[in-house]
């Protein structure tokens, strides 16, 4: 594999396919998009198989100077590999989810999706600071278009909100990047990750990046664009938004904030913890009173992202690996939940929870999948979310007992709003005749949901497959932040051993 520019191929192939799509009929565009995304998934598997665990930190490296300091520099570590796998895994499913649901301007739609895939892979593969920025921002354009053209009734307002938030963040990040390049004299991300910025400046740089990543995550209180964007986006748009785009914030924290500004990360860790704790409790309570399925799941996403940010900033291995696994797990499970909403939205064209009910009667296999993903979302052991949340919270407890205690309340509230949603959709009598007449999953929908369920179980039962590639990278991150790690509040103090309280000691 060495020497073959597989990453460039994965970035350029969808762009080429997007261009072709524009000149095809509706059906032609669908097939080209499906074939391209499937091919990229195969390339992704090749990438994973050829990734050498325990090998060099950066693999599949490519570097071609373009002009000035700007270079076409690509390369991935284990964390980027896993996120690329998530992207290429979800994309064919998105194309399938749009197969019948999108009827107008299909070639443009498929082209937008293919462009987005290219940019997503680019974000995770870029090794040049500005190349990263371009992919990071460019990825939003197709998303604006998908929401703004193929979205719901209030799509303009939603895409406007989305735009305003993310623009604000990215402007600050760009300024910070320019300063960094001027100071460090390089745009090479691996070099910057080892560069020691002046601790006084670090805080400002950290905050500038934080503005961008916090919006992307999204963290409270800059989360209000997400429910609107999800509600208005078509199903596949929501899948990619929840599945991959939200993960760019977390990726940014791991790739930039923590290794580049370790001192600032330690100083400002309370900001992250504070906002994450608020997010988990606040958005869970808001989710409890939603009437719109997509809004409910969108709010639950904000809560889940709270576990990610807490985990990543614990400064210990369990926390960081947990945060990363929650990113992957949420990418699978929330994507699947949005697909589940899409399945019934395609049939009845409403997201209002009360219009459904009793779907277990006429859609038993749908009810089974929906139950599975509901349980995965509440973090049932054996599913991917449990592994991530468990590790993140173990890490959190090691860092601070307050954070662990408040965040763990999320498992109570999460169960409440998800089961309440499920009950209203799938249980009870079939009270609406049109909902009761809906047919069960068709073959296309089986092909969409079954692989995600399988991946969720795999990650839940044998997470080693997913942790192993990232282990060394988390290790080097930990080594980088080791000197700044804040002290825990546990402070275990050993006492004098005393006699056992009751009877004989065992």
């Amino acid at each position: 594999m060495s020497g073959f520019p597989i990453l460039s191929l994965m970035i350029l192939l969808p762009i080429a396919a997007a261009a072709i799509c524009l000149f095809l009929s509706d059906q032609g565009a669908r097939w080209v998009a499906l074939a391209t995304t499937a091919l990229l998934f195969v390339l992704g598997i090749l990438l994973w198989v050829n990734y050498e665990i325990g090998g060099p930190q950066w693999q599949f490296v490519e570097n071609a100077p373009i002009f000035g300091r700007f270079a076409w520099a690509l390369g991935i570590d284990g964390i980027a590999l896993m996120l690329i796998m998530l992207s290429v895994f979800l994309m064919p499913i998105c194309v399938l989810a749009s197969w019948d649901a999108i009827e107008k301007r299909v070639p443009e739609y498929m082209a937008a999706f293919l462009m987005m895939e290219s940019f997503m892979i680019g974000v995770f593969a870029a090794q040049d600071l500005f190349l990263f920025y371009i992919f990071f921002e460019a990825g939003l354009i197709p998303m604006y278009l998908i929401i703004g053209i193929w979205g719901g009734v209030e799509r303009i307002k939603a895409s406007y909100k989305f735009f305003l938030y993310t623009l604000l963040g990215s402007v600050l990040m760009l300024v910070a990047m320019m300063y960094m390049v001027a100071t460090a004299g390089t745009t090479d991300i691996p070099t910057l990750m080892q560069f020691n910025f002046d601790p006084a400046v670090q805080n400002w740089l950290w905050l500038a990046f934080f503005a961008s990543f916090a919006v992307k995550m999204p963290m409270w209180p800059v989360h209000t664009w997400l429910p609107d964007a999800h509600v208005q986006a078509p199903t596949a748009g929501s899948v990619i938004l929840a599945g991959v785009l939200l993960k760019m914030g977390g990726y940014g924290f791991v790739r930039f904030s923590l290794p580049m500004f370790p001192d600032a990360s330690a100083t400002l860790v309370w900001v992250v913890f504070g906002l994450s704790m608020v997010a988990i409790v606040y958005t869970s309570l808001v989710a409890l009173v939603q009437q719109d399925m997509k809004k409910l799941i969108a709010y639950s996403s904000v809560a889940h992202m709270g576990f990610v940010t807490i985990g990543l900033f614990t400064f210990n291995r369990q926390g960081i690996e947990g945060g990363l696994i929650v990113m992957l797990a949420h990418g699978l499970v929330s994507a699947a939940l949005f697909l589940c909403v899409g399945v019934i939205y395609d049939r009845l064209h409403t997201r209002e929870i009360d219009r459904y009910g009793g779907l277990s009667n006429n859609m038993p296999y749908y009810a089974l999948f929906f139950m599975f993903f509901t349980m995965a979302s509440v973090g049932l052991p054996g599913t991917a979310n449990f592994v991530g949340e468990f590790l993140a919270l173990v890490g959190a407890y090691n860092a601070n007992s307050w954070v662990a205690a408040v965040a763990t309340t999320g498992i109570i509230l999460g169960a409440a709003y998800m089961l309440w949603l499920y009950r209203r959709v799938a249980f009870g009598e079939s009270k609406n005749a049109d909902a009761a007449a809906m047919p069960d999953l068709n073959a296309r929908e089986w092909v969409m949901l079954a692989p995600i369920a399988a991946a969720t179980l795999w990650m839940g039962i044998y997470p080693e497959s997913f942790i192993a590639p990232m282990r060394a990278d988390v290790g080097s991150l930990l080594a980088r932040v080791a000197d700044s790690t804040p002290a825990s509040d546990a402070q275990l103090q050993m006492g004098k051993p005393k006699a056992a309280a009751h009877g004989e000691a065992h």
Partner: protein
Amino acid sequence: METIKLIVFLPLLAAIVAGLGNRMLGNFAAKLVTTGALFISCALSWPIFISFLNGSAEAHVVPVLDFIRSGSLDVQWALRVDALTAVMLVVVTSVSSLVHLYSWGYMEEDPSQPRFFAYLSLFTFAMLMLVTADSLVQMFFGWEGVGLASYLLIGFWYHKPSANAAAIKAFVVNRVGDFGFSLGIFGVFLVFGTVSIPAILEAAPGYAGSTIGFLGYRVDTLTLLCILLFIGACGKSAQLGLHTWLPDAMEGPTPVSALIHAATMVTAGVFMVCRLSPLFEQSHTAMTVVTYVGAATALFAATVGTTQTDIKRVIAYSTCSQLGYMFFAAGVGAFGAAMFHLFTHAFFKALLFLGAGSVIHAMHHEQDMRYYGALRKQIPLTFYAMMAGTLAITGVGIAGVFGFAGFYSKDAIIEAAFASGTEAGGVAFAVAVFSALLTSFYSWRLIFLTFYGKPRWSGSEHIQHAAHDHGHGHDDHHHAHDDGTAGYHPHESPVTMLVPLALLAIGAIFSGWYFHEWFIGAETGGGFWKGSLAFNEHLMHAMHEVPIWVKYSATAVMLAGFGIAWMAYIRDTTIPARFTATFSGLYQFLLNKWYWDELYDLLFVRPSLWIGRQFWQRGDIGTIDRFGPHGAAELVQQGSKLAARFQSGYLYSYAFVMLLGLVGLATWMIVQ
């Protein structure tokens, strides 16, 4: 020794086959696969138990697969087999296989039988994973797995709103317990650096007297960990405060109540405390808490049990109360006695539930005992089975001769509480004796209301329906019946239901007498448990030395309870009405279950929804959006006409702005 893998994974396989096969597979195949798998598991479990009884087996662990490896956190999927597990294996597989068989008859007319049997087998798998866990994380896996199965089975009749509500309540209340359990596991890892149970138990004495920071306080490390873990046990085992889900769980089909909400799942908390008994022993405070919570639950549930009219709810509160006994037994250090009561209780309580199911089956789904009466002659086999269960739970027996199961296990707990000599033990003893009086009363009340007296069936809507339908076929039956039967004829249950009753009755009659030497014998117990729980020989010795009045107090209150019940429900049936009229305040308080549900609704449910609405409407929409994006939009709109074009939302203009930014960036870099 790989049979343990078969025992654990056969039920999972059966659940998958029956669950995914569902309607394609058909009822019979689904029932055969699941029930067959369970009987094989059961047949393989008993030899393991017997090998521990005769002392030929040693504790061992069978590894299955890596689970989570993250730095020093190393969790394996592994199956642990020791004496404690062996006890649970036979309890779980025996009751489960009998409940599977019983359900052939009980669920005969249900349209979704494959789903039911798949859930039952799934539950059994999760429970087996729980009892074979070698690490706290795998125990938590089983813990949540049984919670899922319980949720699915309580809500099995999903068209019933009450069943759905009860299912959600069970899951969420259990999650409150899991909150404690999770924090306990996190804390254990922080302190011990491992979640492997044997490693924790070995290291625990070294941490006695150490302190740790928690939420701004400095607390005793082991006390904190034990209490956090115990909160989890309280949730699963429905102890006072987290008990509210258990009575509602009776919305599920009766075989489910017998298996999950009586014999196995609800005892998981007791199992957990016993499994971790060497850890709990290190903290005097934690043991005291366990004792008081257990005693309070025993008393609370017994008082409520005396007033309930739904036959299943009486037994549910009885279960709750007996679980309290098990906990305070553990709290005073008599872990062997706690496990012994868990063991015998599984048989006689499953028997009582399945017997109640047989009554309900005979009475056309009527569950209200006020509409029973005189069923002794109509369904005699069910009557004998229920009698065996009642004799067992009330603890009938003569010391040194023979006793029913509860006579050995419950009396051992009462004596151990006294013998422990601690203040908490003394309180627990007094509470336990009084609760035993109530237990005897409500148990006999159930028997008398159901099987004795005159028929009161005509008051029941279910019966009227049945008799009415029946009447259409036989014209001679449509006359008014003034004998209280409404013309209804209860029928004895089919043989698939009677065989499990008979087998469980054998357990209820003989399990205490036969097994007590192994479980609680002062000389023999240590050899049986072999360190799988903290067996306290001194306490077991002290139990035999208690004063004679202590020894006979349990029997005395048992007889008194019988006498009161006989007076009130056989001799003079006006007594209950007069009593409730006189003490109507007390009666209402008990009838309404001490108003826990109302309290929680007021304290937690309503405020959560209200706060959620406020956060959404006033927080997100009223504040963040108003001053954030919408505020910015207005500002821009007022600012200039050009900006107003942005407001038009023409998307390409946004893309254009992005492009401008990128061009600007590129220019800057070239200039550099």
